[in-house]
């Protein structure tokens, strides 16, 4: 068999094997993702999406002005999901730091200071390419907070609008 034809046949076999395994493992794995994700920032948070996931946007604040209006009421608490370094470099004025990757270590302190479970919490991170605010909202809801919403444009959009920010811890 000519070398080129043989090479193409062998490569095709490797690819078919890989594709079949990939789709099979993805279908069976709890970490599997949807075959198509949400990658358009104008549509909201970008993410791969879990299998069979129905993407819900009902807890998202999609306009920075809406987030600011809630900020002006003074009755909501902004919760920063980013790491402490980013938080100290600048955050929404009055926001609490609760880094999502170190949630367990910080949560006890957080709930001690905010024991009211019906307090409105607004989580945020670095914008629509950042999933941390959604993850944090899920954690807080699982831990009993009943009014948790997500400001999906996050700190960059807030800062760009010139809304109140503060620095340090």
């Amino acid at each position: 068999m000519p070398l080129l034809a043989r090479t193409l046949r062998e490569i095709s076999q490797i690819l078919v094997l890989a594709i079949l395994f990939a789709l099979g493992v993805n279908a069976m794995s709890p970490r599997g993702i949807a075959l198509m994700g949400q990658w358009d920032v104008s549509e909201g948070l970008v993410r791969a999406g879990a299998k069979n996931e129905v993407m819900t946007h009902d807890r998202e604040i999609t306009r920075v002005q809406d987030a600011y209006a809630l900020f002006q009421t003074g009755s909501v608490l902004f919760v920063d999901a980013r790491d402490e370094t980013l938080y100290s470099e600048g955050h929404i004025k009055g926001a609490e730091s609760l880094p999502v990757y170190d949630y367990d270590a910080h949560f006890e302190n957080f709930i001690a200071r905010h024991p009211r479970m019906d307090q409105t919490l607004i989580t945020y991170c670095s914008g629509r390419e950042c999933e941390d605010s959604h993850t944090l909202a899920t954690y807080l809801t699982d831990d009993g907070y009943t009014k948790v919403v997500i400001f999906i444009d996050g700190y960059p959009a807030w800062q760009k609008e010139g809304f109140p920010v503060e620095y340090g811890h």
Partner: protein
Amino acid sequence: MNTAIENAMTNKKLECLVRWTLGGVFVYASIHKILDPSEFAKIIYGYQLVPGYVINLSAIILPFVELFTGLFLLLGIYPRSSAILANVMLGIFMVAISINLIRGHEFDCGCFSVNKNGHTASNIELLIRDAIWFVFGLLPILFRTERLFVIRS
């Protein structure tokens, strides 16, 4: 120089060592992507090179192409074709990294780890690393004599 290359092209032990090393690198590079396809999809998105509807499928399939290519190199199954596939992938990675280098776009390559803090590796370093593997990959492709430890050549 030519003699050195010719010697390398007929050195069975060297071919085996290079093939196993390359295979090991591909298997290792595939594991974290298989374990966390969601994060790998975000890394592909970060390259800003492929349309949205291709991202998830790429994140699902590409790691397994890497895995099987690596395993076939290690086991000596279709060693030449596996090495060609490895170099095609390395070529694609180098083009993707170069395009983002040219347009000054910072991103996480996702090569060996999925870093949740958005680590940005040195792009030049990535290019050099891929280029070195690419050159290594030429040996099992161009090797012509009988190979050591192959199940199916």
